[in-house]
């Protein structure tokens, strides 16, 4: 049978398959639990193998594990019972992935993009918490379980007051800083305000401030001690042990609240050290405390697996009984059974003699005979010596075999090393070191990965939403601008089409031409009528008639040169004003540049000078019968009246008279002048009409040109608006796309 585990050391995602469907079916629930738990392979692998063995009746099977890191591979190799093939991922590759996560978080935190800013808001606190290089390990214990002794053993100094009573009145933070030579102490309030600092402290410092913590005004103080801890490599991580007040401290209910609030507020704690008294397992206090812990961290059940149970005082009477000593294994089995009550099924248990560990590290005064005696006693009883096997605490600690072997070797070294190994402290320290070096980082980045993944998913969703909004907004905008553009263009087109009609509708006053023509025509007709009445006129009469006509023609010509042209100019100016008014009524347009040259001087000279023809050419001698009045005598009246025949009488006599052929003269000279006058008016009117047309055309061309320019400007601004909008949209979309790609890189892990 072959089982394949495909595992991701960053996301902890696991897929398990097998060529044996029956076994797979039997393991279905287990596999489902593994997949759902999202735990690291080291936390479920052993149990899984046990389950497989159960289902396969302990038959040897073939196991392929793909994707685990080197540490996980080492852990897996230590478990027997199968043929193993492991494909590991190098730490370098994992580091690269971590860098991607780091870069995503850094990018997201520093981004000005509103989408990212909004998305990261809900994750920022977790990011900061997960990414923190500070690892806080709370140490929780019921009264008399030897917590202070254990902490003193861990730091290798006797700084914390250890008496068989609730000694811890306030939170004490023990910061491990191997760069310091001594422990320094700082007292600060929860407001972070420092109230006391001591560069080199001893047990008195904590004892004093611990006592003060029960006093009014000092309830909220925190004691911070910082210094070196031997044999504890924290791998550049700032490790702090948090000594919480005993939760079962009946003296102060605040202590209990303080401890559990700490757990509630710090759900992402990597591990919790819980100290059990090996001599009093399953006490009421423990039961209550463990239930409270469970309650405090129940939001994240996997935290229960991170509780490290320190079985302190393993050197106590029960297992120390000379007559009938209870093997450590049994005590541990009891503890495991007990912890199942709290749904803690795979507890990490470290049997320890904190007192032995502490004493072995202290530089004991030769006067302190009691301590020396006790240390000697611990060494004699707990370490393998002669025929004795010792307490085998190492064998029963939750370390992998290779670690146990390593410590066993170390225990063969110096006395101190032997003391640390046989007291069980070395195993605990190694676990903490191992956890920080091999678990904490993985779990830290696993959390960061999950948080980043959720955050990036939110960002991607937001990007998709924004993209669709951008596209929709852009479409709406383009539609709106297009409508405006079409409307404006249409308006201008209508204006262009109707402009000529509107201009043509503008009234033109031409009456002064007809008035002038009428006057001349009337005079001409009168002259025509008069002249044609008689063919010949005497020179004198003809001269008079001609003079009168010439005088009229001369005046008419003068009138044309002055009045008519003036009226024409006036009318053209009026026309221009009308055009300007029309333009301003149609749209806001500068029309000051529409001007006229008026009329050319050519027009003024259009009228030739009057040429009075040689009248003599038309002179003729005509025999005319003239009526004359003569005295009657002279006319023969005397025949009847003699000399007395006086008076006058009419007599007709024929005489030759010099006359003018006025009809011919009129036809040849005067009529052409009238016609010239009328022609001039026609010509003026033509010039006037041409000028009006020219002005109209100039105006229409100008307006149409402006309309076309306006149309072009509208088109350009439309195109610009569209392209700007398009380009802005493209930039935003590109930004989103880039962002999306960056996020997907992380999602590809």
């Amino acid at each position, binding site marked *: 049978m072959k089982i394949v585990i495909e595992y991701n050391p960053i996301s902890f995602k696991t897929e398990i398959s097998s060529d044996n469907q029956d076994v797979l079916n039997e393991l279905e629930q287990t596999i489902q639990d593994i997949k759902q738990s999202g735990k690291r392979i080291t936390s479920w692998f052993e149990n899984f193998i046990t389950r497989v063995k159960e289902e396969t009746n302990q038959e040897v099977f073939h196991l392929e594990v793909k994707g685990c890191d080197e540490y996980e591979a080492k852990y897996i190799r230590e478990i027997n019972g199968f043929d193993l093939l492991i494909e590991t991922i190098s730490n370098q590759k994992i580091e690269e992935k971590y860098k991607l996560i780091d870069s995503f978080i850094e990018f997201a935190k520093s981004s000005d993009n509103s989408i990212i800013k909004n998305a990261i808001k809900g994750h920022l606190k977790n990011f900061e918490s997960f990414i923190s290089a500070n690892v806080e390990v709370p140490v929780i214990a019921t009264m008399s379980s030897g917590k202070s002794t254990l902490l003193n053993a861990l730091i290798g100094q006797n700084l914390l007051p250890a008496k068989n009573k609730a000694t811890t009145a306030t939170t004490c933070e023990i910061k491990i800083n191997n760069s310091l030579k001594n422990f320094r102490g700082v007292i600060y309030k929860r407001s972070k305000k420092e109230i006391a600092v001591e560069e080199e402290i001893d047990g008195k410092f904590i004892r004093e401030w611990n006592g003060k913590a029960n006093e009014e005004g000092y309830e909220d103080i925190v004691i911070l001690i910082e210094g070196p801890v031997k044999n504890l490599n924290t791998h550049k991580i700032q490790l702090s042990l948090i000594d919480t007040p005993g939760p079962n401290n009946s003296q102060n209910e605040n202590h209990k609240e303080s401890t559990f609030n700490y757990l509630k507020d710090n759900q992402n704690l990597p591990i919790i050290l819980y100290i059990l008294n090996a001599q009093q397992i399953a006490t009421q206090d423990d039961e209550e405390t463990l239930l409270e812990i469970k309650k405090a961290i129940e939001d994240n059940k996997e935290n229960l697996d991170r509780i490290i149970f320190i079985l302190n005082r393993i050197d106590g009477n029960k297992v120390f009984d000379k007559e009938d000593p209870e093997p450590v294994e049994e005590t541990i089995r009891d503890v495991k059974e007990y912890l199942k009550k709290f749904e803690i099924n795979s507890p990490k248990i470290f049997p320890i003699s904190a007192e032995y560990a502490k004493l072995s590290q202290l530089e004991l005064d030769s006067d302190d005979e009691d301590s020396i005696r006790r240390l000697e006693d611990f060494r004699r009883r707990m370490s393998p010596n002669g025929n004795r096997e010792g307490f085998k605490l190492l064998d029963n600690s939750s370390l992998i075999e290779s670690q146990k072997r390593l410590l066993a070797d170390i225990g063969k070294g110096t006395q101190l090393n032997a003391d640390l190994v046989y007291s069980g402290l070395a195993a605990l320290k190694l676990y903490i070191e191992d956890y920080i070096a091999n678990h904490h980082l993985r779990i830290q980045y696993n959390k960061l990965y999950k948080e980043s993944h959720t955050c990036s998913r939110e960002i991607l969703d937001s990007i998709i939403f924004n993209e669709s909004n951008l596209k929709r907004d852009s479409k709406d905008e383009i539609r709106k601008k297009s409508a405006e553009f079409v409307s404006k263009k249409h308006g201008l087109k209508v204006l262009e089409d109707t402009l000529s009609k509107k201009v043509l509708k503008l009234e033109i006053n031409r009456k002064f031409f007809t008035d002038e023509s009428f006057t001349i025509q*009337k005079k001409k007709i009168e002259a025509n009528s008069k002249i044609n009445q008689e063919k010949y006129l005497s020179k004198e009469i003809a001269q*008079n008639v001609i003079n009168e006509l010439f005088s009229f023609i001369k005046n008419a010509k003068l009138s044309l040169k002055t009045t008519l042209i003036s009226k024409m100019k006036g009318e053209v100016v009026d026309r221009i004003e009308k055009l300007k008014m029309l333009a301003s009524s149609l749209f806001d347009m500068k029309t000051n540049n529409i001007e006229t040259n008026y009329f050319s001087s050519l027009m003024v000279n259009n009228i030739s000078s009057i040429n009075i023809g040689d009248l003599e050419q038309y002179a003729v001698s005509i025999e005319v019968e003239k009526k004359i009045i003569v005295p009657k005598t002279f006319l023969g009246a005397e025949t009847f009246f003699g000399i007395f025949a006086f008076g006058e009488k009419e007599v007709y006599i024929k005489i030759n008279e010099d006359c003018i052929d006025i009809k011919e003269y009129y036809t040849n000279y005067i009529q052409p002048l009238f016609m010239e006058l009328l022609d001039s008016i026609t010509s003026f009117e033509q010039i006037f009409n041409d000028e009006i047309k020219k002005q109209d055309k100039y105006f229409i061309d100008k307006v149409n040109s402006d309309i076309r320019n306006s149309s072009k400007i509208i088109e350009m601004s439309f195109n610009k608006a569209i392209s700007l909008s398009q380009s802005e949209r493209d930039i935003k979309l590109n930004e989103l796309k880039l962002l999306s790609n960056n996020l997907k890189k992380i999602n590809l892990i």
Partner: protein
Amino acid sequence: MKYTDNIHLINYIESDNIFRFKEELLNSIFFLKGNREELDKVIELAVRKSSFRFDIHQEIDLNQNLSFEDKYAQETLNMKENFSKERLNYLLEIYDTYYSKKEYSYDIPESTKKSSNVVVAVVVVGIAVASLILYKILN
């Protein structure tokens, strides 16, 4: 008068100068003293020998309160726009009604009245001759 006496009319027909011909035709109403027969002849000649044609008549508002002279002048001007037979006939009607009956007097200054001088001279000469004859008879 005959139309042939107006050399300009003939020239304009022959040169096909219709614009001038029309003007001259209107002038000829007076020249021919409204003689329709002569006018018809020249029109017929123009139609035959030139591109002259009457326009289709179009009514052009004419204030009927105007005097004959004004109406005549206005219609001659209207003829430039619409040289119709009807309008020509209307002009001829006005001519017959008004111009044909109109008489013009030429106001000649006294000093230039040749006939009066002649009369005075004749009278003076006559008196002188009569005086001479009377003297011879008495002698």
